């Protein structure tokens, strides 16, 4: 690369435009092969043989920084008071991109959420619902349920993450703690097949009642038909070449 940028602007040649590299001590969720999405042998560049592991940011160690430590201390203390070993309930704590995530063992989710809501030092009174994520490569913990809790009292936001295997897609319902999760859990059930045990009426909410399958799972095809445009066939979106 030359010293001078073709346009004469050289300010981003020092590498500031590249996201900072992350440590490799993360959670491996899959492997990516190839480069240009050509699996049919059409790629002769050699890049088709690339194998890269996909790693999500791993557990963080103390101090987490800012108010994160305060929340973690308070939560652990409050759980201990209830006779719970914090290490059993909180599988790991991840600090990434300025956000605090507690990975919670699913059997303790309701207790943890109730503590987060009711403890005066925590007071996460607003739940913004649940978002499902399906990691096909994360064996034994394929289905993730992600909750964002907001504390208006303390002006904080944290994330809870719970996982369940595909073979046993059960997570306890938080409707008793956060009634707002009623529709959110129905939506996540509808799209991911995550069964929220204890939900008052876990039925489909977006898809028709008699729909088969769970559309947002990664092994569920997007569907679509090829379209002809100016004489050329454009394949359906999920059949097009993917560069990932």
């Amino acid at each position: 690369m030359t010293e001078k940028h073709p346009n004469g602007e050289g300010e981003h040649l020092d590498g500031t435009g590249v996201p900072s590299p992350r440590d490799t001590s993360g959670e491996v969720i899959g492997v990516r092969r190839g480069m240009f999405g050509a699996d049919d042998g059409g790629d002769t560049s050699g890049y088709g043989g690339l194998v890269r592991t996909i790693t999500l940011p791993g557990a963080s160690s103390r101090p987490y920084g800012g108010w994160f430590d305060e929340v973690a201390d308070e939560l652990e203390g409050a759980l201990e008071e209830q006779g719970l070993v914090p290490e059993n309930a909180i599988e790991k704590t991840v600090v990434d991109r300025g956000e605090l995530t507690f990975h919670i063992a699913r059997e303790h989710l309701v207790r943890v959420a109730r503590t987060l809501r009711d403890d005066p030092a925590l007071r996460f009174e607003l739940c913004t619902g649940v978002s499902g994520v399906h990691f096909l490569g994360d064996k034994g913990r394929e289905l993730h349920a992600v909750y964002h809790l907001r504390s208006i009292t303390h002006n904080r936001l944290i994330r809870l993450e719970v996982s369940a295997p595909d073979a046993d897609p059960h997570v306890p319902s938080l409707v008793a703690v956060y009634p707002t999760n009623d529709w959110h859990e129905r939506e996540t059930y509808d799209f991911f097949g995550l069964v929220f045990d204890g939900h008052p009426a876990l039925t489909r909410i977006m898809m028709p009642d008699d729909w088969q399958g769970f559309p947002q799972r990664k092994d569920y095809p997007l569907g679509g038909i090829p379209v002809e445009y100016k004489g050329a066939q454009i394949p359906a979106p999920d059949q097009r070449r993917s560069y990932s």
Partner: protein
Amino acid sequence: MSTPSASASASARETTEGTVYTVTGGDWDEVVQSAAKADDERIIVNMGPQHPSTHGVLRLILEIEGETVSEARCGIGYLHTGIEKNLEYRTWTQGTTFVTRMDYLTPFFNETAYCLGVEKLLGIEDRIPDRATILRVLLMELNRMSSHLVCIATGGMELGATTIMIYGFRDRELILDIYELITGLRMNHAFIRPGGLAQDLPPGAVDQIREFVKKMHKNLPEYDKLATGNPIFKARMQDVGHLDLAGCMALGATGPVLRSAGLPHDLRKAQPYCGYETYDFDVPTADTCDSYGRFLIRLEEMRQSLRIVEQCLDRLEPGPVMVADKKIAWPAQLSLGPDGLGNSLDHIKKIMGTSMEALIHHFKLVTEGFRVPPGQAYAAVESPKGELGVHVVSDGGTRPYRVHFRDPSFTNLQAMAAMCEGGQVADVIVAVASIDPVMGGVDR
């Protein structure tokens, strides 16, 4: 299938669930008479999914006793288009084209929330040019006004106040003209992109917005004159759709619904984004917990938005509107050609004629897109309806691994039952209108 009916407007047929009447307008007395013949006192009314008073394809299932609603439920999903699933099959930049269509009355909020999430994943929040951020705020505040105007206009129409409807759409049209000038479209803009904006303001835009601000200062008081003190309007709105603070917190209601319960929670103040902490504006609240309070809050929020728009215009200084990183920024400036909006001729001349590398770069960035480091992020903005949150997950690829939108309409609509049960059928319309649900956002 259908038995001979008393009139064409209310046909009846027998099903396993009992007699079902289909009402398509006409004489209500006839329906009531034929329903009175049934030995069952319990009547379930299906309002929607295409009733004009239900804000799109919302289905309200009301169990009524006389005029009183004893149970109310929502049926949603009629406008589900799989936007979140579709996003997983496009590049990160193409994502804005989808998200802008979710809550189609607040396109700029959807786009900004999505882009803030992607930028957080990329770690480039600090490198978004000031001009792009100011323009995002400007567009969002204009959008807040156009969304509130539709809410007030359609809400008025549902009460039979057609003048308000005409006024609201008249003023919204001025805002849509500004959108059209800036983005080329009246809705579904896909103008805000990860890293900045699709393009800069066209010539004349600032003047037109200033002109609009002037006109709006004149027009906004008309809503006060027309509605705020209007006894009929107040009689229909006051103490209707009641939801107190405890109810709001439990049901996760945000936005005007929450602020009508007296809590001044606004993400622009609580967790500022896009530099909102540097703007001068107030968060209006009401302590009435009812539809009238929400109406007043929306009216006041439009005045505050106007203040922010003026501050944005004063701050605008020339500069880039896209992040400097050429691995993310779209390589071409868009310009208007004889066949519509496209890459500028200068850029095409350069990549086709003089620089093979630039051509490759352009092609790769447009077809392949950029990679986003693995991880997840949550970004939230205060949309006109409440907290619009987006949960973005990347697996390091050129496409989103998962994008989930926490749409405020979806969450707030859950409060419908709490607001309507025990009230009158006619008040259901007012209560739903005060939530301001947009089904494109609810169903996504």
